């Protein structure tokens, strides 16, 4: 019998009453790329976290190279040659890339210039061997997300890992960067390393892996050989039913112009230019998608439109009237609603219940308060109705919303933002972290808004989502719109190139 480099048997992990991993068996070979596929919350990350020592399994055993292993901490895992590249990177932002990589190294107390220089060289050579490139001497906060991921990968290699786990590695990358990552993974495989990658993206699994294990709701469903399967089968295994992903068909609309932004320039938090002469328009009854890799000005664009950030130069005309100053109150009153990027940070107050969270934007109105006193009973029944209408599953109205699942939090947020018939909806990554069912719900809500004549500015990194929903797709790069495609002409490839800053196909050939 062949000996696996990693074998997990009957792994159980519970968080309170939730069983995140239920009798999971998993195995991977040296010299293979093994994909662990599943929806968000299926338990992939939990299982991998147990392999890398972040969590301890409640039951079950783990064998590394055929020997039973006790992995009680990340340190134990590292000793056994297991390294993990986390989804939210484990990097110290203020340290340089090289400092992050050598962190934890016990040798050499004194670290003068020569030591640092020799380490820089060593790290650069190692990175090059696997086709990775990043500035070793710059602090992490100055690096792009793609570069940060490369630092993480080199970190595990530097520490001598031969079993490398990548948790959702492609979620933050451009299509071009994804290709680069896959070629790095193939080089690792050639060197005989065990590569395990968790993801929920079937296309990438098909393109990169040798074998695929599918998880659903904490259980291991199947392990397949990639070349013997197809996306349809994977989707069925992953979701438990057939899903069809297709473009949402729609009637073309000829709505009048709702929002016009001209030559907008905005400073970012550290004085850098975040938006640099950006122009765009949104019409009534139109979904305008903004594609781009994170950090190209999307956050600032959304903040300016919702009154959270002032701009330096440029014009904003909303609903026929010029907007003079940034004001959140002004934005709310003029009918702009906002689904922020991080719903638990700036969308909802986690420790408060549904009623309070629903009231945040409308408590001032006659309907909800009088002389500064809230109409408690009325607000409660109003909230009950909204919760029912938007199908938010919450044990009680007063349950702190941080205890709801991501999908239900997002529904609650949408309930608040949609209920007052906004003229413009600014939605930033509205389906991030949601499973297929909840994502479909959010998409439906956005299409309903469109049908009712509202404009939608949809800022997302998920190309499939943008292609499904948008009437027009704009590509943002370095704070400006560098390309536009319509619903009919848009395709993954051209948008992917523009996201990497390449304006057209001709240019990329040069």
């Amino acid at each position, binding site marked *: 019998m062949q000996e696996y480099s990693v074998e997990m048997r009957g792994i159980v992990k519970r968080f309170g009453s939730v069983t995140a991993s239920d009798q999971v068996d998993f195995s991977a070979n040296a010299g293979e790329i093994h994909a662990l596929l599943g929806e968000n919350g299926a338990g992939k990350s939990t299982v991998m976290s147990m392999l890398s020592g972040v969590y301890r399994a409640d039951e079950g055993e783990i064998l590394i190279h055929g020997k039973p292993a006790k992995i009680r901490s990340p340190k134990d895992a590292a000793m056994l040659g297991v390294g993990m590249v986390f989804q939210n990177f484990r990097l110290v932002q203020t340290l340089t890339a090289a400092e992050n990589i050598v962190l934890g190294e016990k*040798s*050499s107390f004194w670290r003068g210039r020569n030591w640092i220089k020799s380490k820089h060289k060593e790290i650069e050579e190692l990175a090059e061997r696997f086709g990775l490139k990043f500035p070793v001497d710059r602090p992490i906060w100055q690096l792009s997300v793609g570069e940060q991921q490369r630092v993480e990968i080199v970190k595990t290699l530097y520490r001598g890992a031969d079993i490398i786990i990548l948790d959702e590695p492609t979620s933050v990358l451009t299509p071009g960067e994804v290709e680069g990552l896959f070629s790095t993974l193939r080089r690792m495989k050639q060197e005989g390393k065990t590569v395990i990658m968790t993801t929920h993206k079937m296309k990438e699994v098909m393109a990169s892996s040798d074998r695929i294990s599918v998880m659903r709701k904490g259980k291991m469903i199947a392990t397949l050989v990639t070349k013997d399967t197809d996306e349809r089968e994977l989707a069925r295994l992953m979701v438990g039913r057939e899903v069809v992903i297709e473009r949402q068909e729609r009637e073309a609309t000829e709505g009048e112009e709702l929002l016009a932004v001209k030559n907008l320039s905005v400073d970012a938090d550290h004085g850098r230019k975040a938006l640099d002469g950006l122009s765009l328009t949104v019409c009534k009854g139109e979904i305008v998608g903004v594609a781009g890799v994170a950090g190209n000005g999307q956050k600032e664009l959304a903040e300016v439109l919702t009154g959270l950030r002032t701009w330096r130069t440029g014009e904003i005309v909303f609903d026929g009237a010029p907007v003079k100053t940034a004001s959140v109150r002004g934005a709310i009153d003029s009918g702009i609603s906002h689904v922020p990027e991080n719903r638990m940070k700036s969308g909802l107050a986690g420790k408060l219940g549904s009623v309070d969270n629903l009231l945040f934007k409308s408590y001032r109105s006659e309907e909800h308060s009088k002389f500064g006193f809230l109409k408690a009973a009325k607000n409660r029944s109003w909230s009950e109705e909204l919760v029912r209408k938007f199908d938010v599953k919450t044990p009680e109205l007063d349950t702190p919303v941080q205890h709801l699942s991501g999908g239900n939090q997002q529904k609650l947020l949408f309930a608040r933002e949609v209920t007052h018939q906004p003229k413009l909806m600014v939605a930033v990554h509205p389906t991030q972290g949601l499973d297929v069912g909840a994502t479909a719900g959010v998409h439906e809500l956005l299409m309903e808004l469109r049908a009712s004549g509202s404009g939608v500015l949809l800022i997302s990194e998920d190309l499939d989502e943008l292609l499904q929903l948008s009437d027009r797709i704009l590509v943002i790069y370095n704070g400006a719109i560098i390309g536009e495609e319509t619903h009919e002409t848009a395709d993954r490839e051209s948008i992917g190139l523009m996201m990497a800053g390449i304006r057209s196909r001709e240019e990329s050939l040069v």
Partner: protein
Amino acid sequence: MDFVTQLLIAAISAGTPLLLATLGGILNERAGIIQLGAEGLMLMGAVTTCVVFLRTGNLGVALLATLGVTALLGLIHAFLSITLRANQTMSGLAMTLFGSGLSAYLGKSISGNPLPSSLPRLDLSFLKPIPVIGDIFGNLDVLTWFSIVLVVVLHLLIHRTSWGLHLRAVGDSPATADVMGVHVRLIRYGYVTVGAMLIGLGGADMVLTVAPTWNEGLTGGRGWIAVGLVIFARWNPVRALLCAYFFGALDSLGFRMQLLGSAIPPYFLKMIPYIVTILVLMYLGYRNRNKPSGTPESLGVPYVREQRF
């Protein structure tokens, strides 16, 4: 000696207790633990030094006792905020109130008794011929030299050694440090304890040089100034030296103007350091508005390993 040289000497003298306490605070907070107990620790350091010095007549024993007592207090703060994950602000304030009360009680019997001797001085007479430098550095006491050397040592420790790298990582992102095999709790315990000892030494220096006798509430809020200087210096030992001496200069400037018979009421002169501090903070805040603040990112956040994100 001209006025400026005299002021510089006074600045170093008044600034050294602050410098020691600020360095202690920097170590604490670089490791990610807020230290608001400085005032209490300084008082405890001062009173321990006085009591033991008067009893034994031996300065070395007195200083060792001071280090021991404040290390114990530091360990209590560490236990509360690291192991029990108590609120660090509350634990620090408790330390200050506890230290103020206990030091008043312990010092009651010796209040006003002059200490047998002051700190020994290093006579560097070969510096004497150099103008200004010779006057300033020719005759400093041992604790002052210790604090100056400590600034250099800590600067190198933080930026040039593996320990420093671990310290910075633990304060900024303990989860990352943990995954990389750095012993987060041990490091935090260590720096909180050593930090408390340095703050206590600041109190000892205060009583030995500035006011050579114990009085209740002797530090007069300098522990709180040190808490502010940690932020002022943006957690950097070299800047801590400049800030502490700057504050020391202002402190003694008010005193000197009073001696010269200035028409300004003494209460206003005593306010000078604080007013200037506010002004300088405003200016620096404006100038550095686009820079990262330098605050250790996980300052005040207890670290728990097994946590669901």
